């Protein structure tokens, strides 16, 4: 991910700064092009289908899980946010437990390009063991599925209802620095959304700001 400093001179007299949306933040030109020309996942609409292989080469097709609640977790096991969440945070054991239930499927997706942090099948096999993950980690090295879902960070969480609609996109919780999980204002957004779905309620919030390491997409 090459960063470049942008001058803040975004306009001289009558400057029109388009797409300065913060929630989520302004998207890159490439992402904007992708959004304009391709179908991109949107909360409230049908989740785009995809086919990816796991670390052992087994194929997974999203639409095969229709009728179940599917959780997608964008994954980079070397990102410190992911490490913390899997070792002592909201992701520790949670996905594995949920994945054991008949009505749920939890899938991790690694969209980091080869050679970048957290990429590589052998490495991910070790990370799966380290975090005791008991659900598939799907490999998306070309980033197509990541871009299809507009996944920005690891983790970036998505929930797909049994009818195939995307009902949540965003952070796992409201505790990026891991300091709040004992406090009253701590919210595990994914758990909350799954509870709401189970009760037949509408998911609220349905979109939150994801936090974590940026997905290291292939250039």
């Amino acid at each position, binding site marked *: 991910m090459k960063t470049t*400093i942008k001058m803040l001179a975004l306009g001289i007299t009558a400057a029109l700064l388009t797409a300065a949306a913060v929630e989520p933040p302004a998207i890159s030109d490439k992402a904007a092009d992708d959004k304009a020309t391709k179908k991109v996942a949107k909360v409230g609409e049908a989740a785009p289908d995809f086919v990816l292989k796991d670390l052992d080469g087994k194929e997974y097709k999203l639409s095969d899980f229709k009728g179940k609640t599917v959780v997608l977790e964008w994954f980079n096991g070397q990102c410190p946010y992911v*490490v913390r969440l899997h070792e002592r945070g909201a992701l520790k054991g949670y996905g594995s437990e949920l994945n054991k239930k008949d009505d749920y499927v939890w899938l991790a997706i690694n969209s980091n390009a080869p050679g970048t942090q957290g990429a590589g099948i052998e490495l991910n096999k070790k990370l799966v063991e380290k975090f005791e993950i008991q659900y598939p980690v799907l490999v998306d090295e070309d980033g197509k599925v990541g871009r299809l879902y507009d996944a920005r960070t690891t983790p970036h969480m998505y929930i797909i209802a049994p009818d195939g609609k995307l009902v949540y996109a965003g952070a796992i919780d409201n505790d990026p620095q891991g*300091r709040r999980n004992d406090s009253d204002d701590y919210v595990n957004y994914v758990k909350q959304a799954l509870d709401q779905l189970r009760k037949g309620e509408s998911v609220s919030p349905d979109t939150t700001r994801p936090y974590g390491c940026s997905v290291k997409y292939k250039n």
Partner: protein
Amino acid sequence: MRHSSFIPTAGLAVAVALTAAAPAQFTPLGPGSPRQPARAAADVTEVRLETDVARVLPGSTFHLLVVFKPREKWHLYWKNPGAGAAAPEVSVKAPLGFEVGEIRWPRPKVLSSAVGDMYCYEGEFALFIPITAPDSIRDGAVMLSADISWAVCDDDVCLIGNVSRQTTIETFGPVIPGGETQPRLSPLAVKHAARLPIQVKTSDDAKATFENGTLTITGPAHGRSEAAFFPNGAAGVTYSKVNITFADNRFTAIVDVQLNPRNFGRRQPAIGGLVALGTKLDDPGYEAEVPLPSLSSSLGPVNTIEPSPTP
């Protein structure tokens, strides 16, 4: 996806329990592990706690400075990190009677990434935290401490750090030695304060309103003819088209705002952002925050996003 319910503002709390979490570390996984970061956040970031004055008078307000200095090529994030990782968080512990205010954030810069624009800090910068001393302080000294956590990233990796820092400040009772009336600001504070935006709420010349889904911020242009808008991150608030015009050495920033009450979370959001004039980090800027009056009165005429049906 244009809304959020996570407010990435720093949580300031007096007497918050000390979290002694160790800096995030990576366990080496041996061969086949590309780009193993061998560092912790504290290795690439200096973090200091200072005060802007050496001594404080009864009832006066001073600032606690959390000074970050990331190594070259590393960056931290503004209160709204944009597409970046996360803003620093600071929990301040001060003696009873001292009031701790909200963090004041210096002007950030934009870094572009594959996933969007990030609002960042490179090089040394300081967060300013106003603290008001009680009227009853006596001669002596008080200790202030802060638990600080932050994300620091380069082009390839992010690291998370947690540290606790302490500093002391002298206190004087009503009688001030040498007849001194106002303690002098430290050179460090003067240097870093230059990047702090002017708060619209404290300025006679600037104004911010939020009506009919439009945020309008006006103020003196200080001779500048260009500006950028950095929107505050707030749950359920999306900032779209931004139009900044200049006339008679004044600027007017008009920002379209969409609200999604479903994603407000537990706090009623405030609408606002920073109008950063000019192009230099120490050019003037104006930061505004307009609270939403109430759900019932604010959501009628403004741009709202209908909740999507859930099966």
